């Protein structure tokens, strides 16, 4: 599935919630469903800086596709990480680099995008794109 398709699926999932509480409960549930994150990868180089909560993102590259994993000590942040991972994992570096991330609006998480929100959504996206860029460069160097 393409990034946009996966994002649309997430947005559809969220569309049923009218109440903010339900929406946030769902975000938290998504976070809880994340595969457990290797404690060894909670190293400073995987920590996204500039958030009130600690959030780690790690990526691997296999068969031309980027796979992400992540974790956070705050449940909302972890849920947001889970959404990003679900949407972006399994994509090529180019797909990740070309996406303008407007799907976040569709899920109604735009408020979390403001740079003052210090929850790391911006930081996570930036970090994921950096990974994609690095993998792309590596591939081209082959």
């Amino acid at each position, binding site marked *: 599935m393409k990034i946009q398709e996966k994002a649309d699926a997430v947005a559809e999932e969220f569309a049923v919630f009218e109440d903010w*509480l339900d929406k946030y409960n769902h975000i938290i549930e998504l976070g809880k469903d994340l595969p457990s994150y290797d404690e060894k990868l909670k190293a400073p180089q995987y920590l996204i800086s500039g958030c009130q909560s600690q959030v780690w993102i790690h990526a691997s590259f296999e068969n031309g596709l980027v796979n992400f994993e992540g974790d956070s000590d705050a449940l909302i942040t972890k849920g947001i990480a889970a959404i990003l991972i679900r949407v972006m994992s399994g994509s090529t570096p180019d797909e990740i680099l070309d996406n303008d991330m407007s799907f976040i609006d569709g899920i109604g998480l735009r408020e979390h995008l403001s740079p003052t929100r210090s929850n790391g959504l911006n930081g996570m996206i930036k970090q994921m794109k950096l990974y994609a860029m690095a993998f792309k460069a590596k591939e081209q160097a082959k």
Partner: protein
Amino acid sequence: MKSMEAIRAQFPILSRTVNNKPLIYFDNAASTQKPLLVIEALDNYYRQSNSNVHRGVHTLANEATVAYEGVRDQVQNFINASSRSEIIFTRGTTESLNLLAYSFGELLNEGDNIIVSMMEHHSNIVPWQLLAKRKKIEIKVADIHENGELNMEHLISLMDEKTKLVSVAHVSNVLGTINPVKEIIIEAHKRDIPVCLDGAQAIAHVPVDVQALDCDFYVFSGHKMYAPMGIGILYGKEKWLDKMPPYQGGGEMIKNVSFDGTTFNELPYKFEAGTPNVGDALGLGKAIEFMQQFSFTEIMAHEVAMTKKATDILKDTGDITFYGTAEKKVGVVSFLMNNIHPYDAGTFLDKMGIAIRTGTHCAEPLMKHFGIMGTMRASFSIYNTEEELDAFAVAIQTIKSIFE
């Protein structure tokens, strides 16, 4: 005390909603809201009197100058300084402390030391660290007790013949502790050490009388006492201000300028280079007027009641850790809901219209001391009500049930 309704009516922002809920503003330690007379003072100034001060012969310049200098008198009176030339306008606490670290710092020599405490705001740490690098001096840090009170014995034990300044918070922004500043000053003065008090969190909450305290410097921000952002005060005893070199150079702070040499203006202008922030200073004057409607006895009684009720609510919730349980404190309650990240809880509170602060509160050394990443902090002001705390209680229960 005036009726709560009458007080709240003076703050237009309190009638707005946040996320479709009535705003409950419990982040007063970060910045207080502004009463109408302050907002109107800004509006009036820019409509009626805007002009540069100290410079013109024309009517507007004179009006602006008279009004601006009038606020200096108000501040002098508000903190009971002995002379108006001891009142220096700055941008706020941070600039006041940077001014001090720079100018007072010029009087220090390699090997000297200054003392701060573990509970300081970064504003009362980083300027001294910059000075320490520049002048090769040492910064000593006084410990605190588990309940958030200063460890006075330790603080006093740090004072030696090389100590050139003690700079501590009058009131802690995280813990709410009212420090025994009079005692600190007496001990320091016995050893001829001057004392600077960071009054950012004290100025709107406890009476400040710089002569009774006998502090050498006192700094605060207008925006934490109902005034606009961008204006603050450095109080300094004349004997120190006279000795200190100017901070910034420019207009206003000079007497004569020539390329052969420049003579500096007298106090307080020596430390006020450039066009000052007249509009916000006038706002500060009105904020002082606003505050003078109340007695500090009333203010403190209200804060004690709010703090007690908030503490009881949280205790009833269970699973709460409190940070800062000093006997003498202002209306600041720092806590953690065990197993719930402050960011999560803060986000949910915001969804319910309640503004509190989460995070390190610009006091990372203190967080490290407690071994935590941050706290949740509710901080109260004169316009907060018990009903707001009832809503807070419901919100806290909701959050607890979500995360359980």
